[in-house]
């Protein structure tokens, strides 16, 4: 299948799942009625449900999924390692920590974009630390060890910050920040996170050519005209913006950036540049599908998105480790 056809097919799947997300909910109305209520306000509560509850949820599903899928593909390209994934290596966790700290310190009240900006700062610190700790090579062990250490630290500090809060609800937030959910998000969240997610994704999509050359390693890529320092800067900034903003509104949803590039790599002939846009669409599709599934499996119970993603993603992770065993 040609690259154009793959992109077209993925776009169609995303569109279909977007519509599917819009018609999935606890309210017992037909899909047709639901979609009609999106455009026609007949004075019943349904248009309110469609426009203020389901539409922002579906939009965030697309944006968060695209951000996570694209970030995974880009980080894998830079580190030349299929296990590099924002959730697994602690970038999402650090983003969640940033978000929680901004809430707990009251920074969120300071300016409109304080929450996603704080999450971005956390994710950025996480990405820099992982890249620094994992070193330049493509060794899996340092990367995973650095990721485990960073994830644990971010998780512990997040829990600590929430446990120290005088608010009795704060401690129960831990689950949200660590597992992620799109339940009952509003257009305020879309407005807050969309600009940063789009900016981050746009930055990541420019790295394709450099990531192609990196297939041959850093030394060869540098000799082939790639400015490695600039590439790292753009990539860390892009991942931090995309993952940070996604985490600020949806919590740390793991495994999207692992599963999606893994499934699509073969279809794009292994080419990192083509994997980027394909993973953005694939990520959107996966998160939309998972978000529909959590509503169908346990209606009205807010099954966390991250729980479902871990159930899908962990076996893929194990499979990758199984395949890579014996390599340094």
């Amino acid at each position, binding site marked *: 299948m040609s690259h154009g056809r793959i992109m077209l097919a993925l776009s169609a799947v995303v569109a279909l799942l977007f519509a599917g997300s819009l018609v999935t909910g606890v309210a017992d109305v037909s899909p047709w009625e639901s979609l009609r209520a999106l455009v026609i306000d007949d004075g019943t509560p349904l248009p309110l449900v469609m426009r203020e509850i389901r539409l922002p949820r579906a939009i965030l599903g697309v944006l968060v999924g695209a951000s996570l899928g694209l970030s995974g593909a880009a980080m894998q390209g830079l580190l030349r390692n299929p296990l590099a994934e924002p959730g697994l290596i602690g970038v999402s966790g650090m983003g969640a920590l940033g978000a929680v700290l901004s809430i707990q310190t009251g920074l969120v009240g300071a300016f409109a974009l304080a929450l996603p900006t704080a999450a971005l700062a956390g994710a950025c610190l996480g990405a820099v630390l992982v890249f620094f700790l994992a070193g330049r090579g493509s060794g899996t062990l340092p990367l995973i060890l650095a990721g485990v250490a960073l994830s644990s630290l971010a998780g512990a500090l997040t829990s600590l910050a929430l446990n120290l809060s005088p608010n009795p609800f704060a401690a129960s937030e831990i689950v949200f920040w660590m597992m992620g959910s799109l339940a009952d998000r509003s257009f305020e969240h879309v407005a807050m996170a969309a600009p940063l997610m789009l900016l981050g994704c746009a930055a990541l999509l420019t790295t394709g050519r450099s990531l*192609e050359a990196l297939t041959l390693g850093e030394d060869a890529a540098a*000799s082939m005209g790639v400015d490695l320092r600039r590439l790292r800067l753009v990539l860390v900034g892009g991942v931090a913006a995309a993952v940070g903003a996604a985490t600020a509104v949806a919590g740390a949803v793991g495994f999207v950036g692992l599963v999606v590039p893994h499934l699509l790599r073969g279809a794009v002939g292994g080419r990192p540049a083509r994997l980027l846009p394909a993973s953005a669409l694939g990520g959107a599709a996966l998160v939309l599908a998972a978000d529909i599934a959590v509503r169908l499996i346990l209606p009205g119970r807010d099954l966390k998105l991250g729980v479902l993603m871990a159930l899908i993603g962990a076996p893929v992770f194990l499979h990758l480790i199984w395949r890579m065993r014996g390599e340094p």
Partner: protein
Amino acid sequence: MTLLEVENLTVSRKGGKALDAVSLQISAGECIGLIGPNGAGKTTLMRAALGLIPSAGHSTLAALSPAARAARVAWLPQSREIAWPVSVAHLVGLGAAARGRGDDHPAVGAAVARMGLGPLAHRRATDLSGGEQARVLIARALAQEAPLLLVDEPIAGLDPAQQIRTMRVLRALADEGRGVMVSLHDLGLAARHCTRLVVMRGGRIVADGRPDAILQPALLAEVFDITACTLATEEGTIFQPLATVAP
């Protein structure tokens, strides 16, 4: 025509110098064998000359912008890394991409044909044998259409036939008018296929000249700690290490 000129190139590292005031010129048509014991500074010399690591002194390549440098020199690092299962044709095409050209540029097809990769063009590069991968990576460098090739240990780990084939290709490229500098440990292959040998030890160039002039017992004993048998034949110089000097 001089393709690379380095002067007093020095790379400092903790507790000493990895490269100590090295000066060197490479001209078109030369196939230079860069030899020396482990840690002599062969890789450091090539990377510093390319500007990939910080150094003092002067190199005509190090000052160039990354894009301009890609047009002047192709670099084949020792690690034959191929991170993703891309097709052979695409991988060779990366060389053209370094010059801002597409996969369909004639240089790509020419490089694939030159390295005899036609039948493998649509295979995944990661599925090939070590020797085939070495050829694919050389083809990538050829597709870059740079007049100078710096090649770091291209024959390490290859079987004898692949080693000979690789050295013949590099020599042929030099004969066609490019400049080639190749680092290697096999002095026999270096003697037979290179037009000039540069000997390094402790970050310095200790000898530089025609192979038969370089591979003399005194230098072999001092630099490489070996004795060897050298035989001039119609096929070229046959060189065989025999024993170590120190017990």
